[in-house]
Each structure stands twice: as structure tokens, then as C-alpha cells.
């Protein structure tokens, strides 16, 4: 009974912390500007199916892709067993699904989970080796030190321990099942607790662990089995609370994030409506400059581009929480590969970190303006100007994150709010404006090639 109450409290506390963090993230994302992504739901479901559920972009790098699919499938399916553990924990039952009948199905499922758990364990060990032993460049960039590096390792080590606990739980359970059955067969009295260990499940993987625990007494085995059971479920609940603070939140956000993907061609950069209205007025010879309606004093002034996270759209902010820092974007970025400061992954991490900072400020009742901004305090002008807008990062992202759109929005702020650009860019603007070409050639010479054609 005490165990059940304790379990209920643990479950409640972790659900509370999880929900609280989800609330924070939701509030932070809603700080972004509105953008309509509610159209074309069939195309959106299709994208989510292919990219998130089907992992179509993950497998473009086969080694990481296939290992990731193992962990992903393992994570989803082993949840059925977690559900059983939660029911057992709440109602004091043991392997409740086995008692529902159809023992063969239960045996089959437990067998599958065991194999998956083993594959997850192997995949996580390989991931740890890839991160920490093999020198894979994208895991060693400047932005991947300190917390981001530990975050990745914490999760991987936790998963290894969880899978080991699950398998050890099964191994000790299997031994106990066998001992209870033998005792019963030989007419010995079986204690009530031991009688819980009904024959259920098949243990193709944990059978290997049996020699590790076989020498123990029944009492020691039961203690170990309970310890592994609690360790496993506390680990999972801890994981639940930890994940929304971690890059690993992608396990939830990847699905909605791909659903809300930009469905336009990658090269299409939506036009700014506010600018269209002004340009139309400027170009209309009949427009009366004095006929413009008096500005609404309550209306927020129109801002062009983005200086801080609130100037970005909610989707760009959603992207930042979805980013799992895999660095595929950065590894294909032409600027990054040639030693420039720009790293698309860092753009996403900076956006998320700044958004968290702004969110925390709101909680503490700090003044809205903390004197900092995404531009400059997090992302430098040098990074912004290194982008070739080639969209390689967008193409590479396994969950359809779009770092280029953030770069362009920050550039828009620099140009349209601060008139700040590298000198040569300013010269290009002037040429376009005066000569209709980015170079200083007179517009009248545009047809010169025609004369040259027949000479």
C-alpha cells in the first residue's frame, strides 16, 4: 500500500513538473508573431508522416539514421510495457497484462520489447562512442561544449541505464518465476510475495543476464527485482521531467514541427505585406500623400525584420525548441565548412536560449526590455552576413527546421531599421536603386550585348 501511495505521488509530481514546463514553452512560443500554417492539412499530414513518423530525412545518413530508428521504435513500443508498469504501480499488481489472458501474445510482446531494449542499448552505446571517442566534426563545434555536450551524454547514459534496469528486472523476474514454479511443483509452501511471480513473458535477451543473478537467494532476488523496477520507472519519470529542458524535447515536438513545415518551394521567401502597402503608395502617381489616415496612436509601430525573439514568428520559435542539435545543418553549411563563424545550429540554439531567457524574465516580473536582444547579444552581424541562403541547412534538417528564415529576418532588421550593412552591400543597394543593376553600369547599356552579337 505504501508503495502504491509513493508511486502515485511520484507520478503526480513528475506530471506536474512536466506540465509546468510545457506551459512555459507554450507561453514562450506564443510570444512570436502570428503566421498562418493551418492551410493544406492533407499535405501537412503527409509531410509529418514522411519526415517525422517515417524518418525519411534521418536515413539520408544511413548509420546515424538506422541507429536512430532503433531508438525511436524502441522508445515508442517499450511504452506499452511502461504502461503496464504504471498500472502495476498504481494498483499493486504484477505484470497485469499477463493476467488479461492470451499468454502467448504477452510472451511475444515481452520478447519483442527485450530485443528492442537490447537494440536501443547497443545504439546508445554506439552513439556515445560516436560523440565521445570517434572524432565526428559536427559533435565538436564551438557551440557543442559545456551544457549541450553534457545534455547529449546525460540522455544517452540514462537510456543505457534504463534499458539495463529493464533487462535486469526481467532477468530476476524470470529466475523468481522459475523458483516459485519449482517450489510449487515439489509441494513446498510459497510465500505470498513470491507467488506474485507468475510464469509470464519470454526473455530472449535477459536470459543472458541470468547467470549474473542466479546465485542470489530468493529474498535478494526479490529486492533486486524491485530495485530495478523502481529504478526503471523513476528513471523514466525523471526523463519525462528532464526532456522539456533538453534538446531531447524533439521526441515530442518533431511531429507538430514537421506538420507546420513551410510547404512552399525552399527558395520562396514570403513577401512582407507591410512593405507592399507602403511601396504601392510610393509608386502610385495618384496617391495623395496627405490623404493617408491619421496613424492610430494605440497601434504598435510596424517593425521590419527581427531584432529579438518576439519579432520572429511562432513557427521559428517552435523550430528552436524542436532542434536537437544534431548539427547536420552546420556540417553542410558552405560558410561553416570554410571556417566562417556562421553555424545554422547555433542560430537555432541561440534563438531557443534567448527565448528561454525572455520567458524567465517574464516570470520574474522583470521589465519587458532587459537591454538584450537576439541580434548582437547572441547572434553577431558577422554570422548573418556569412550566409549564402543556399538552403543546404534546411534540406539537411531531419525535422524541417528553417534557420535561413531567421537569418533573413535579422538581416531585414539590420537593413530596414538600422540601415546597417557592409559597405559593399550598401553600394549594391545604391546601384540597384539608381541603375537597376547591382553594379554601377548605366541602364542604357543593358542592350549593349545585342550590338556585340553580330559584330
Amino acid at each position, binding site marked *: 500500500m505504501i508503495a502504491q501511495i509513493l508511486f502515485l505521488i511520484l507520478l503526480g509530481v513528475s506530471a506536474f513538473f512536466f506540465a509546468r514546463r510545457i506551459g512555459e514553452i507554450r507561453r514562450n512560443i506564443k510570444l512570436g508573431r502570428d503566421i498562418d500554417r493551418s492551410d493544406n492539412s492533407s499535405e501537412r499530414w503527409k509531410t509529418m508522416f514522411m519526415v517525422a513518423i517515417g524518418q525519411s530525412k534521418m536515413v539520408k545518413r544511413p548509420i546515424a539514421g538506422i541507429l536512430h530508428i532503433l531508438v525511436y521504435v524502441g522508445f515508442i513500443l517499450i511504452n506499452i510495457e511502461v504502461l503496464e508498469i504504471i498500472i502495476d504501480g498504481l494498483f499493486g499488481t504484477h505484470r497485469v497484462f499477463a493476467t488479461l489472458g492470451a499468454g502467448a501474445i504477452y510472451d511475444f510482446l515481452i520478447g519483442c520489447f527485450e530485443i528492442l531494449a537490447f537494440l536501443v542499448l547497443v545504439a546508445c552505446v554506439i552513439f556515445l562512442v560516436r560523440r565521445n571517442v570517434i572524432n565526428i566534426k559536427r559533435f565538436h563545434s564551438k557551440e557543442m561544449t559545456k551544457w549541450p555536450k553534457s545534455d547529449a551524454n546525460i540522455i544517452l547514459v540514462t537510456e543505457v541505464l534504463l534499458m539495463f534496469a529493464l533487462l535486469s528486472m526481467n532477468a530476476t523476474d524470470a529466475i523468481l518465476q522459475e523458483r516459485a514454479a519449482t517450489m510449487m511443483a515439489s509441494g513446498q509452501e510459497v510465500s505470498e510475495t513470491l507467488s506474485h511471480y507468475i510464469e509470464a513473458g519470454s526473455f530472449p535477451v535477459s536470459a543472458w543476464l541470468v547467470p549474473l543473478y542466479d546465485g542470489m537467494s530468493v529474498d535478494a532476488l526479490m529486492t533486486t527485482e524491485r530495485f530495478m523496477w523502481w529504478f526503471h520507472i523513476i528513471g523514466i519519470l525523471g526523463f519525462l521531467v528532464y526532456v522539456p529542458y533538453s534538446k531531447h524535447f524533439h521526441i515530442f515536438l518533431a511531429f507538430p514541427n514537421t506538420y507546420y513545415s513551410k510547404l512552399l518551394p525552399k527558395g520562396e521567401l514570403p513577401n*512582407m505585406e507591410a512593405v507592399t502597402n507602403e511601396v504601392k503608395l510610393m509608386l502610385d502617381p495618384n496617391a495623395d500623400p496627405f490623404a493617408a489616415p491619421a496613424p492610430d496612436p494605440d497601434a504598435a509601430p510596424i517593425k521590419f525584420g527581427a531584432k529579438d525573439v518576439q519579432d520572429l514568428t511562432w513557427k521559428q520559435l517552435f523550430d528552436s525548441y524542436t532542434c536537437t542539435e544534431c548539427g547536420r545543418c552546420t556540417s553542410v553549411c558552405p560558410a561553416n565548412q570554410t571556417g566562417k563563424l556562421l553555424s545554422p545550429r547555433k542560430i537555432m540554439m541561440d534563438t531557443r536560449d534567448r527565448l528561454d531567457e525572455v520567458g524567465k524574465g517574464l516570470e520574474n516580473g522583470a521589465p519587458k526590455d532587459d537591454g538584450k536582444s537576439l541580434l548582437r547579444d547572441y547572434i553577431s552581424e558577422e554570422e548573418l552576413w556569412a550566409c549564402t541562403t543556399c538552403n543546404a541547412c534546411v534540406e539537411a534538417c531531419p525535422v524541417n527546421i528553417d534557420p535561413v528564415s531567421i537569418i533573413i529576418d535579422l538581416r531585414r532588421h539590420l537593413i530596414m531599421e538600422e540601415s546597417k550593412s557592409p559597405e559593399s*552591400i550598401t553600394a549594391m543597394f545604391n546601384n540597384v536603386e539608381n541603375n537597376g543593376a547591382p553594379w554601377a553600369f548605366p541602364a542604357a547599356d543593358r542592350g549593349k550585348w545585342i550590338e556585340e552579337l553580330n559584330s
Partner: protein
Amino acid sequence: MSEYIKVPTMAEMMASGEVPEVLFWVGCSGSFDDRAKKITKAIVKILHRAGVKYAVLGAEESCTGDPAKRAGNEFLFQMQAMQNIMVLNGYGVKRIVTGCPHCFNIMKNEYPELGGNYEVLHHTQFINELIKDGKLQITDGKSFKGKRITFHDPCYLGRANDVYEAPREALQTLDAELVEMRRCKSKGLCCGAGGAQMFKEAEPGNKEVNVERTEDALETKANVIATGCPFCNTMMTDGVKNFEKEGSVEVKDIAELIAEAGDLL
């Protein structure tokens, strides 16, 4: 072969009451840059040979606004776009062939919202269409037999608009060996010029992007690096010079290669 070619402007066409099938949008590079002008001339010769009824805007053409937009100057972009749209709509233009993937992308994707609705084709798509329809035969010129050609995907044609096959199909008519770079199609590496980089110095780093990309191309042991963008052409040409390979490796636009094969230049 130097047949006299008259390049009609839209204004001339309109004055004589004619309507061209397509407008050839030359682009700033193709109009002013000496190297890119050669590509423009090749395109015009192909159009002429295939009997396409086309016209250009001449002095009425103006920058599409692409470099301004990508650099963050939405005002300048929209000013340029709206002025161009006024001209294009004034002539009732329906179909546009561009000589540059940046013009192609922006006119195809970003002009419609501002009132410019056209069917926009990149010149490699149009050339491929002409070959497929049997309107363009290119058998009487230079033979590319035994040559290795590698195609460098322009970002604004490939990744930006998923056009990967048309330029390759056009190249396949050349009877050369088409070899792919390690990074090609959706994984192609940028030449380093996009997003207004063409008009500024690169940020500090340890290498130029075009050098990195030229290495990919040289790795294929190709004799010809085929391009579909005047900016890529400049960048790859500079890259080849950087490796002092200009004697053995040519950088040519697909239009130039097709024109050579058809003895049009």
C-alpha cells in the same frame, strides 16, 4: 558561323503588333558581365536556331530585386519587383525564360503575390524542352565524345525549386560522359555567391567557398564543369584558376555547350 541575328525587343514587337511566345529575361549579369554576356549570346543563338518567337526587354529590363531581398532590403526588392511587373504586365507577358536561376526563383515564386503571374522557366528547362520537342537539333557542331562533364547544381534551381533533371537531360544530348560530384543535386554545395555574397567580400574564414566547391568538381576528373547560373560560372571559373587548371578544365554554361554542339557560336 555568323548568321545575322536580330534580337527583337518587346517594344519593337508591340509596335509591329506581334506577340512573342516567350520573353527572354536576360538578367543583370547576362547584360553587363563580359563572361555572362557570352552565355546570353549562346541562349539567343539557340532561341534563333530553334525558331522560337522571342523578345527581350532591352533597356526596359531592371534588376529583379533578388540581391536586395536576400540582403534584407525588402523595400528595394518590392520597388524593383513592382516596376518590373508593371512593364511585364503592360506587354501582356505570359511566359518568361530566364538566363539566371536567381531571376527564375524570384519571378516564379515571389512575383505572383505582387501581381506578376507568369510561367517562368530557367533556360536549361527551356532548352531541354526545345530538344525534346525536336525543335533544336545539335548534331552538326563540336563533338563532346570522350569528354567528361560534371554539372554544378545552382542552389536556386536545385534545392530552391527542385529542378535537377532538366539541365542533366540537356547535357545528356551531348554524347559526353556525365559524371556527378560527391555532393550533387539536393546535396550540392553552394558556389559561394548566393544571398548577395556575390557583391561583398566573404567573411573571415580559412577557405573560399568556391575553392571548396571546385575541389569537388576537379575530383571527378571532368574536362568541363557545366553551370546554369552566371554567378556560379564566375565562382567556378575563379576556383579553377585558383588551382591553375584553366588549361585543362573549362567552365561553361549548359547553353554554351549546347550552342557549341550545334555549331551556333
